[in-house]
């Protein structure tokens, strides 16, 4: 019961701040609302007893991605206020499409028998070491593990090349 109330509060705060992310006037406000929304998602991970991903969410999303976005906001703005329209002309089409998708998905999901199911048994406390073992187990996720590092390397090299590639020129 208490859990349900907590959940509703957190979910509401998260959704409202997510909505403000996409509608706020100032870019920096968008970024700060994004931080709140990401934090709400981290709290929901904690609700789902995925402690590891709750802290990783804070560490990676708030600590790194949000900071990266804020730096990018700073690097690409001259004036504080967004002059001109924030939304494209046909924004109501986008609104309708999103609402339709929402309605469609909820209806489709609600016909599924597992929709109202309660939680199963909680995770084993040893799930994280197990996850670590599976990550390097050649029969399980060793390939995704190595591919992830390649992907990260590619992102690092590519982004550095794009962002700081040219020595001369503006900036």
């Amino acid at each position: 019961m208490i859990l349900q109330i907590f959940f509703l509060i957190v979910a509401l705060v998260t959704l409202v701040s997510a909505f403000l992310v996409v509608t706020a006037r100032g870019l920096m406000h968008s970024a700060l609302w994004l931080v709140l929304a990401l934090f709400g998602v981290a709290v929901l991970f904690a609700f789902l007893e995925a402690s590891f991903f709750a802290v990783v969410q804070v560490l990676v999303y708030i600590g790194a991605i949000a900071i990266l976005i804020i730096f990018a906001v700073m690097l690409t703005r001259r004036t504080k206020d967004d002059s001109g329209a924030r939304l494209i002309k046909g924004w109501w089409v986008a609104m309708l499409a999103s609402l339709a998708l929402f309605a469609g998905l909820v209806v489709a999901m609600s016909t599924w028998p597992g929709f109202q199911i309660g939680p199963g048994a909680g995770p084993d406390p040893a799930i994280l070491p197990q996850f670590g073992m599976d990550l390097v187990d050649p029969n399980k996720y060793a390939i995704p593990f190595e591919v992830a590092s390649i992907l990260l390397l590619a992102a690092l090299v590519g982004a550095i090349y794009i962002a700081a590639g040219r020595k001369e020129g503006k900036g």
Partner: protein
Amino acid sequence: MLNDWLYIGIFMVLSLFLPAAALVIAGILGPKKPSPIKNSTYECGIETVGDTWVQFKAQYYVYALVFLIFDVETIFLYPWALAYNQMTFFMIMEAVIFILILLGGLIYAIRKGVLEWQ
């Protein structure tokens, strides 16, 4: 596990609430005599010219970028470190390769000179 997080949640709320309450009390106790000069932005006594938004160097972005990549790396390395004691040598080698690939990225960034402060 949910209990731990409940504790953390209460702790977080309290550690935000108590300083905030202290600020409110201090706001009540302190004098309030605002004036336009006092409330102007402090920039070495010179009147503020233009907007607060100044252009930043792409430098900052590169630091944040390298930090992000290494931070994501920890998602994989922490579970691996937890299971370290039960692992075979081969499994350790896989993680070493993982780290070496990322170390390659770091060396690229250094050789490219983007991590130098200019």
